[in-house]
């Protein structure tokens, strides 16, 4: 490589790489380092004192630190699992509706679904807090029309987390639908024509052709859905503040509360590291479960 080439390579890469190194990679490494310390977020890094695995022991321990953290962890796990279980099948179903050309309206549906993905989460949270309102909200009113009794939605510990999952699914499903459509366009038409010749029903075609060939798309969607789900923050910060009775206290909210608001930087970092490790485990599991194993299928 000549000098000129080296110089242009460095020149082209420096801004983006430098910024990402300083503002993502360095903080990542700091998070790991700080997780072994006791440190007040209000003071400089040099005030951090090494405490070994004490923070992690606290997270697993019997005190309120451990109990609150494990509750937030469990809530996030439930929230994530529910989000993925709802979003993936919905995205395939909606994707089929957008992708088909038999009946009109596919593009309209895509536009409507994707519009909600553009809406700031804070506005989504505000609007849904009113939609969910037990007395003045239209959702309970509509349920009443079909004879379903009014639900408590965000105001009861039993239903609050699920209510937030639902508003999140509404906001995000458009994105995953477009991903599903992208996957569907990759499936060769000839496969369906051959299946038609063999007399396979539409139902059989879906299970034998469409779903298996969407495997990689679904894997990608599942990974993104998991990563998005652990980031839920606005509806909790704005409407429920983690309540009622801690039922919506999720990881992003809890880590920020501990690490920034209470300035327990070391403890908050230990929580962040635990979240990161759990995410890696989940993503590796998803890959081993869903990845296309080539000839086997």
């Amino acid at each position: 490589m000549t000098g000129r080439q080296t110089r242009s390579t460095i020149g082209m890469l420096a801004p983006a790489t430098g910024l990402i190194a300083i503002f993502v990679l360095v903080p990542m490494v700091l998070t790991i380092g700080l997780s072994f310390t006791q440190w007040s977020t209000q003071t400089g890094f040099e005030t951090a004192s090494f405490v070994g695995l004490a923070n992690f022991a606290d997270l697993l321990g019997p005190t309120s630190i451990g109990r609150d953290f494990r509750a937030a962890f469990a809530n996030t796990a439930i929230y994530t699992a529910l989000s993925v279980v709802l979003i993936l099948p919905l995205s395939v179903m909606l994707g089929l509706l957008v992708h088909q050309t038999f009946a009109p309206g596919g593009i309209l549906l895509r536009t409507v679904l994707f519009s909600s993905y553009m809406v700031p989460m804070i506005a989504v949270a505000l609007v849904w807090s009113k939609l969910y309102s037990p007395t003045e909200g239209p959702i309970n009113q509509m349920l009443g029309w079909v004879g379903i009794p009014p639900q408590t939605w965000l105001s009861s510990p039993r239903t609050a987390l699920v209510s937030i999952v639902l508003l999140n699914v509404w906001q995000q499903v458009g994105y995953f639908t477009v991903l599903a459509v992208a996957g569907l366009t990759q499936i060769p038409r000839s496969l369906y024509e051959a299946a038609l010749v063999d007399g396979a029903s539409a139902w059989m075609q879906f299970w034998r052709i469409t779903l298996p060939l969407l495997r990689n798309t679904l894997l990608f969607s599942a990974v993104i859905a998991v990563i998005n789900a652990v980031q839920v923050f606005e509806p909790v910060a704005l409407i429920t503040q983690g309540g009622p009775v801690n039922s919506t206290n999720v990881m992003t909210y809890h880590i920020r509360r501990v690490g920034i608001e209470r300035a327990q930087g070391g403890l908050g970092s230990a929580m962040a590291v635990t979240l990161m490790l759990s995410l890696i485990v989940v993503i590796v599991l998803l890959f081993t479960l869903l990845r296309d194993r080539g000839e086997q299928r």
Partner: protein
Amino acid sequence: MSSMRPYRRHPRTWRRGALTVVILAIAVAAAFPLVWMVLSSLKTPEESMQVPPVWWPGSPNLNAFTEVAGVVNLGRSFVNSAFIALVTTVAIVVTSLMAGYAFAKYRFKGRDWLFAVLIATMFLPPIVTLIPLYRLTGYLGLNANLLGVVVPNLANAFGIFLMRQYIKGVPDDLIDAARVDGASEFLILFKIVAPSVLPAIAALTLFAFVYHWNSYLWPLTVLQGNTDQYPIVISLSRLLSYNRGAMNTGLVMAGATLAVLPPVILFVFLQRFFVDSIVATGVKG
């Protein structure tokens, strides 16, 4: 064939009609929250409090919108949001074009390794780095300031990935011809490569603008309660606490409607590029 028509045509038409109804019903249901938001912003406070809820405003009016401006500094918040979204978007497009070009067209030692590290950051939830980042921007004197919102977000891995995917498709001959003519690498990037990946630039513009217009967690953290510097999404959250209960529904909905407009308008214009870019990065990537 012609003898089969009468038997086949009828069920086909019927099924097409049924499917159309299903699609429209889902579209209406999906649009409902946003339609409700706009309708509620036009209602009177009395209508907002009625039980059961009134769907259609009896005398549509914009009072709630003027009232929002009295509670939060709406103009200032909009300027702040526009500043954050525009500066980050322009910077992200430029830094991503440069790095994407290098990763797509240069050969250098450690290229694939460096690219993999950068891409990995795409999957990192922001909360994982939030605490030290907050201290880091504090060291740089950026806390409680709009610059603190902007500076850590001038480059991102997704932009680099998107640009690399598209720039790979630009013919090498085109670039080599310009090099023979003595054009500098920056001239080649901005005069030859960039114009041939305009769809990717449009998509990245939309992604970056919408993401940073909507972003909440980082601005809330770094601005440390300095309300002068609040973007519209954080000012909005103050509307809810301003007056809890049904009284302020119209107010909240008017604020939400205003905050939703810029990203949704941008989306309507750039929708096609957006969808194409998801196909390019989601499946082939």
